[in-house]
């Protein structure tokens, strides 16, 4: 893991988590993985309406971060948002139905893969436009501070967003105004097919924090416990009024940028294999089986989720299509003319 040598790397925490909490992390990662495997099959069967960007290989990030969040904390997500939504509490049913274009989808079928909304539980939406998750998350944090809540806000974004003006303006504003927000960069080393080191001469995202004067932390993005710990510290700072943190999670997507896209030419088979060997779920399973949980515990979860996702697919399949009239509803909130 060459990249992790750059910047501050947090050591994996010994433990501190209860068995229940550890199994919850495992369960959450697996929910994401199995749901997406289902989506991939459905995509190949022509059942998905619109694009489908999977999070396969990156599940530790959303899982480790969102484990700290209360339902009234908020998350602003990206085009690669299934994992964020599921970790924030959206159900596999709602995600699968959404990608199937059904009325029971989390966005009523109008959103698809890139527009997952469930603000009732703090899922403030994913965005097909790269960048604004950063600035909008800072904005929610502004409201939380102004209204003297102790809610916090999280922005997920990729390495691709780092070269965007919204990274610069959003992080600077949040820092100078001391806002309770956590900036989580999912650095998977590519934006579509453009390698990060072709987008910038400084691919060390955490080091950028110095430019703005906030703490910057780099962490192994395939290690859910490391992420859990680093995110926990940052969230404590945010809730405690100490302002934002930039958390860089170094990870990798093991599938193509988007389902249906070719995945050759821009990266080597060896690189992919190397990262697959560091699969966050398999790795964490090994950690668990190294004395923290029994094989039975783990298998029970595997089975539970298998059923959950099958049931969710059946639910999505049998759900009704959206009523066409909703198309022009909610363009405005007030009736006003």
């Amino acid at each position, binding site marked *: 893991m060459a990249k992790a040598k750059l910047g501050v790397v947090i050591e994996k925490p010994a433990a501190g988590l209860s068995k229940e909490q550890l199994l919850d992390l495992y369960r959450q990662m697996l929910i994401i993985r199995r749901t997406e495997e289902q989506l991939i099959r459905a995509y190949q069967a022509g059942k998905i309406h619109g694009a489908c960007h999977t999070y396969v290989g990156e599940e530790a990030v959303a899982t480790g971060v969102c484990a700290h969040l209360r339902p009234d904390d908020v998350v602003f997500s990206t085009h690669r948002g299934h994992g964020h939504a599921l970790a924030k509490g959206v159900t596999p049913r709602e995600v699968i139905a959404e990608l199937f274009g059904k009325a029971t989808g989390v*966005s009523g079928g109008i959103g698809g893969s890139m527009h997952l909304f469930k603000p009732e539980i703090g899922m*403030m939406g994913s965005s097909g436009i790269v960048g604004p998750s950063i600035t909008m998350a800072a*904005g*929610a944090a502004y*409201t939380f501070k102004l209204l003297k809540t102790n809610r916090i*806000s999280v922005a997920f974004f990729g390495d691709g967003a780092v070269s965007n003006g*919204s990274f610069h303006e959003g992080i*600077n504003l949040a820092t*100078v105004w001391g806002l309770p927000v956590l900036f989580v960069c999912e650095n998977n080393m590519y934006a579509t097919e453009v390698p990060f080191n072709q987008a910038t001469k400084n691919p060390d995202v955490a080091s950028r924090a110095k430019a703005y004067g906030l703490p910057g932390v780099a962490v192994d993005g395939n290690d859910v416990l490391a992420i859990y710990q680093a995110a926990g510290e940052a969230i404590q700072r945010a809730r405690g009024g100490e302002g934002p943190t930039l958390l860089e999670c170094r990870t990798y997507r093991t599938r193509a940028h988007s389902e249906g896209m070719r995945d050759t030419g821009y990266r080597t088979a060896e690189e992919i294999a190397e990262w697959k060997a560091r699969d966050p779920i398999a790795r964490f399973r090994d950690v668990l089986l190294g004395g923290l949980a029994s094989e039975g515990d783990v298998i029970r979860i595997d089975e539970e989720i298998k059923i959950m996702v099958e049931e969710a697919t059946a639910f999505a399949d049998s759900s009704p299509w959206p009523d066409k009239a909703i198309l022009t509803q909610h*363009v405005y909130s007030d009736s006003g003319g």
Partner: protein
Amino acid sequence: MREMTFVEAAREALAEEMARNPAIFVVGEGIGARGGSFNTTLGLYDLYGPERLRDTPISERGFTALCTGAAAAGGRPVVDFMFIDFLADGFGDLFNQTSKLQWMSGGRLKMPILLRGCIGVAKSNGAHHSGNYYPFFMHIPGFRVAIPASPRDAKGLMKTALRSNDPVLFLEHKDVLMLRGPVPEEEYLIPFGEASVAREGKDVTVVAIAAMVPKTLKASEELAKEGVSVEVIDPRTVAPLDIDTILASVHKTGRLLIVDEDFAPCGVGAEIAAQVMARGFDDLDAPVQRLNGAFAPAATSAVFDNMVPQVPDITKAVRDLLAE
């Protein structure tokens, strides 16, 4: 009735609503202790301090999107762009996020954000400080656009804007900022989508926008001396647009001119003309005409002050229309 300027009236509305609603905060460059380049927030910093009157760095895109997120999370931001030209760097997020979040969330998110700024080709402001841009916000679903032309309307529309759950663009033409006029003492709100008949008449209808309203009223006085009776309509909000009031007037007069300093193509006048034709074709005794500013950026030398319509241009356009 007491008189005050447009700026004072709009500011009174903001002050009243800030007192009423602790979720309202204002961001912008120099809107804190300084009170705004156009005095839009004068005195409020002393009352509400830096969190509710937030001076910003020059990060228009950033703070526009930030306020979009703040609104989604239950705040009620007012983004004061000073010159509306500076909002252009935030267009991307305005068109993709601010305008769409309510719809994308199936109405579960509300978007109570007010975007305000000064518009118009005022004296020697030049190419980068004279923008209008309102047709963009009429074209894209999701925005309300208020363009008051009098102190009374400024206050009443600002109050409505600060209670709306939709994103509102509130545009203040530099040439009307210092206009004085009557403003009721008691509380009042002016609903969006209701045009005002600024002057009644029977020979010809003129729809005027922003600073063109007082100019058209002046032109109408001159025309009255010639025996021409002009009905002047100020739409006050262009989204929603009160086409019914315009149609009713055209039904009476048979002739319509739209006076708008903004560029003609795909502008307010084009939209009004198309709608009036579609719904009031048989009422029209002559084609709807438009009078707009020159199709060029704004020049500074004072010899170009007449690049937007002046009173004589309006009287001439009315006479020409009557001659058709």
